[in-house]
């Protein structure tokens, strides 16, 4: 479990992380999503005690990182850049890390095996490709068999096979009951791996939501219906069990129905339709809209940070349309 409270980091005049609070729970993959420069890596470095917070605090398993008895046995982290001495072999790199935390040396070969680097284990890591470097970083994270894992942009530089592998790995780690915290700037990536989503933009938390809610809200296609007889058509559609959302006076978003069904329904009741369109918003768009708003978002707003947009709310259950 990772708990951040009011975490803030200032670099000179740049407020990289601003009053960030969130909790990462065990047993699920929590995605940490934000555009470039949003403050993901900085937040992760603060969790690991590498960067000192300007304000606020963060704990792992209830303790400040530097108070962990044997950190590698409790937390495994893949940092954003290849953070390895290039002159040392992969084997020796992992060996010195294992030794520092009293981890048996057999574990080094085990993790090298897991990430598929045994063939190059004795080669200096400076010759490693980006993907091999990532694999080595992941091996280091797994070394102490920790209950908490953090991955900063783990799919960076991995080939499709590697991407598939790391996704499976993260799911498996979470299924084992571990805390898995993974950053990315790709919504599509998060949609595939994460159960929970923490969205950060310009150093602020924009959303802290269940992935399913986020998808329900943003990725389900809906049908845009415009009709001069909406006051009658609306209740008819809601009665069918479709979720209906008001857009403007005479137009509605309808979830859970196909355009053809709506057209037929209107025809059956002799109602006129002025527009009937299927809308397919991508998660990526939803994310960009969310983070794109950030600048104006905190421009006129006072401290403390405003509540995130209504992404965290549970969507209305189907059949219970929010009709006027």
């Amino acid at each position, binding site marked *: 479990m990772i708990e951040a409270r009011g975490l803030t980091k200032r670099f000179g005049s740049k407020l990289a992380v601003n009053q960030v609070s969130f909790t990462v729970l065990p*047993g699920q993959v929590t995605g940490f999503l934000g555009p470039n420069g949003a403050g993901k890596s900085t937040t992760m470095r603060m969790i690991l005690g590498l960067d000192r917070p300007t304000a606020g605090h963060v704990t792992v398993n209830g303790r400040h*990182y530097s108070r962990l008895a044997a950190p*590698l046995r409790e937390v495994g982290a893949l940092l954003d850049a290849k953070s390895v001495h290039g002159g040392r072999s992969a084997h020796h790199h992992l060996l010195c*890390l294992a030794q520092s935390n009293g981890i048996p040396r057999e574990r080094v070969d085990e993790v090298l095996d897991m990430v598929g680097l045994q063939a190059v284990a004795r080669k200096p890591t400076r010759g490693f490709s980006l993907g091999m470097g990532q694999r080595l970083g992941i091996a280091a994270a797994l070394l102490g*068999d920790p209950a908490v894992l953090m991955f900063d942009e783990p799919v960076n530089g991995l080939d499709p096979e590697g991407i598939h592998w790391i996704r499976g790995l993260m*799911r498996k780690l979470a299924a084992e009951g571990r805390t898995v915290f993974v950053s990315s700037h790709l919504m599509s990536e998060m949609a*595939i791996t994460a159960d929970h989503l923490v969205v950060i933009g310009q150093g602020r938390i924009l959303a802290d939501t269940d992935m399913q809610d986020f998808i329900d809200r943003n990725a389900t296609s809906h049908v845009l219906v415009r009709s001069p007889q909406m006051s009658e058509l609306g209740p008819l559609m809601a009665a069918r069990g479709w979720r209906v959302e008001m857009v403007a006076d005479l137009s509605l978003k309808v979830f859970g129905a196909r355009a053809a069904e709506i057209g037929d329904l209107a025809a059956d009741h002799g109602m006129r339709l002025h527009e009937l369109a299927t809308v397919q918003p991508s998660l990526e768009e939803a994310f960009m809209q969310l983070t794109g708003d950030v600048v104006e978002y905190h421009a006129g707003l006072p401290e403390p940070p405003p509540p995130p947009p209504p992404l965290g709310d549970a969507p209305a259950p189907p059949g219970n349309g929010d009709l006027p």
Partner: protein
Amino acid sequence: MSDKTPHDPTPDDAAPNGAAPNGAALEDTRPSRRGMEDTKPRRPAPRELTPRASFANVLLSEWTKIRTVKSTFWTLLSGAAVVVGFSALFALAFTSSYDDLPPAERATVVPTSPMQIAFYFGMVIFGVLGVLVITGEYATGMIRTALTAMPRRPEYLLAKAVVLALVVLVAGLVVSFLSFFVSQAVLSAKNLDGSLGDEGVLRAVIGGGLYLTLIALLALGVGVILRHTSGSVVTVFLVLFVLGIVGGFLPGEWGATIAKYLPSNAGGAILLPRAEEGSLEPWTGLGLFALYALVVLVVALVLFQSRDA
């Protein structure tokens, strides 16, 4: 505690060979999202207390680090080559010019004179090793990995210093004795040689090893403070080599007094069997040098503790 860990994170269900390159990017590897809440196996009992990473663990780790990069071997080898080689060379210079020296200068030639000069030329190389053990980590980003493994920074730096000191002490003693014996062999041609039994000679030779150790530690401190290899090496070179020479040009009695206290002049005093005109007492000099190194290391520790890695 048993090494048997409660989990085996092998991603066996995600065998890499099963993925079609184009399908992989979109494949949902989750077990159906909706029904997961109930079936998700929770972490069982809280794990037993993990043993604290001890200082001995960190020492062992630092030992592995220093012996598994080639730069350690090469800096020590070149340092040894320069010190031992120059000892022979200057011993040769002393023997060949001895007859032409005025009596007053002849009196200043002692058995350890060649190695004292050789140390002056070779010492910076041992400093380079001290710099590299830390700037090598900053340059590659290894420092961040290392500090996640050992976030107690004073302990981390202390372990690094201890391992560096032990390595350079052993190498330094070997170099010092070699340099002594090689130069004595050359000096014996003119009967200028001495033996370890002579007054102050054994102390000078052992002191040479200690001096190189302190140089490496001072350089480690400089490396921690500057975090940059080239900048740190240049700084060490300026402080030890250049400053010592500049000291010789300082005018008057006042200048001579200052010169005695400059780092490499103070430290180099240990290499003489007896204190000479213009140098501190051997142990006083080396003690002062140790103090300089300590001050640098304390500053380094304070910065290391407070800065972002």
